[in-house]
């Protein structure tokens, strides 16, 4: 099929960007969205133009590197990562708008590449369990009830792609932050740092310039891993509990 692409092009963080139009021909419906961009880039290089920069790595939907806003939707029309979106979800002759994640805390680096290091700093502010190597007790010393283990896993599935921030009208990172807070706070191993974790991570999240949550639910709709919306309410409760104990 043949498509018209309107892609955000921006040479670097300080430069102005613009939407530029490209035509791609003979796209197979079996291609992934990124393979479709690969073909565009091959043509651009052959023409001596600079290819479109975009982040990607595993291309199996687990590393969280890829992500672009496709026709106004983070990761496009299917609930998956951009690398697992296939062209069969588009029709011949379609015009597709492709933009980078937009948030003050995710400045555009080039074209569709943004700087998501704010997420790493949110994790560094408490998204861990302090367990220096070698100091661990026998694994079976503390049984973890299956419901707690399952709840931890559901939240631990977050891949840190940033679609929640991109989809949120407020550029809020509440779903991302709450996923890690809940993953660790429901486990007995995470209990000693339960309060400092949530307070530290929320403070860092605020300091990074993410917006607040107005519970629009856009984040959970866009999340390719299905982190549930109540995750945010659970973090709110953890936060209030911790603030009261502070």
């Amino acid at each position, binding site marked *: 099929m043949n498509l018209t692409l309107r892609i955000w092009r921006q040479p670097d963080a300080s430069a102005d960007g613009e939407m530029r139009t490209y035509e791609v021909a003979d796209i197979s419906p079996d291609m992934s969205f990124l393979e479709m961009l690969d073909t565009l880039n091959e043509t651009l290089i052959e023409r001596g133009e600079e290819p479109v920069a975009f982040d990607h790595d595993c291309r199996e939907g687990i590393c969280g590197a890829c992500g672009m806003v496709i026709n106004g939707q983070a990761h496009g029309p299917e609930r998956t990562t951009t690398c697992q979106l296939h062209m069969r979800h588009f029709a011949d002759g379609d015009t597709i708008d492709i933009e980078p994640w937009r948030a003050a805390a995710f400045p555009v680096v080039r074209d569709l590449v943004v700087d998501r290091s704010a997420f790493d700093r949110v994790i560094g502010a408490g998204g861990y369990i302090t367990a220096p190597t070698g100091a661990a007790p026998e694994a079976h010393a503390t049984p973890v009830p299956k419901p707690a283990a399952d709840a931890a896993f559901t939240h631990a599935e977050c891949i840190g792609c940033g679609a929640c921030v991109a989809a949120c009208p407020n*550029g809020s990172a509440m779903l991302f932050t709450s996923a890690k807070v809940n993953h660790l706070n429901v486990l007995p191993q995470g209990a000693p740092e339960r309060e400092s974790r949530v307070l530290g991570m929320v403070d860092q999240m605020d300091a990074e310039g993410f917006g607040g949550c*107005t519970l629009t639910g856009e984040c959970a709709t866009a999340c390719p891993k299905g982190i549930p919306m109540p995750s945010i*309410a659970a973090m709110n409760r953890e936060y209030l509990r911790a603030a009261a104990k502070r």
Partner: protein
Amino acid sequence: MTMATVTRTPGSQRPGPRPPVRPRGGFLRTLWGSTIGKKTVMAVSGLLMLAYLLVHMFANLKVFFGPEEMNGYAHWLRTLGEPLLRHGWFLWIARAVLLAAVVLHGVSAYQLSRRDIAARPVTYRHQRRQASYATRTMRWGGIILALFIVWHILDLTTGTVNPRGQEGHPYENIVAGFQNWYANVIYIVAMLAVGLHIRHGFWSAAQTLGVTRPGAARVLKAGANVLALAITAGFLSVPIGVMTGVVK
């Protein structure tokens, strides 16, 4: 060769902003200093105002039982708490609490909104309709309600803009007030706004305060709809009563 610069650099990771260091022990200070805390302030003040609105709406229905019922209730409000409180004190205490709630709600909303807007400095070229109507109208709805509160106080508390404005005679003031078409329009628009505001606000407040019990979301959303509908309908019944001549 211009490409190479041989240096020893201390880390290329964007250092990133550091959160403010806050002293321990200040619950309120912690709350006021964070987005979640400010949302909590909004939730608590919002629920307080919601409780007030319920009572207010219920009391308004007395208008259908004649001037004595209504005016008597207004008089009773001033005597409430006596003899522990002096005459009228309860009302002033209630007004002070409500004022504090409105100010805290408004200031939090203003600060959070500014923050939210700043967090998405560049909008998407390809815009897509998102979320529910009530969710998207929280900010405009809030501004409409703030303006309405001012009008409403001038109309029926101080009587400044009321055509009759006689103290101690709320029934007559209400009937007189709703003789003007624009008063009706203002009132009806504001009551529709309050309905929408409650519809999202009630559910949102519950989330902010950390309600996560399985199944709670459905109950809360249904509760929000019922509350919004009851309050809007209750309040609207008064001008409709006046317009249709049921209340004279």
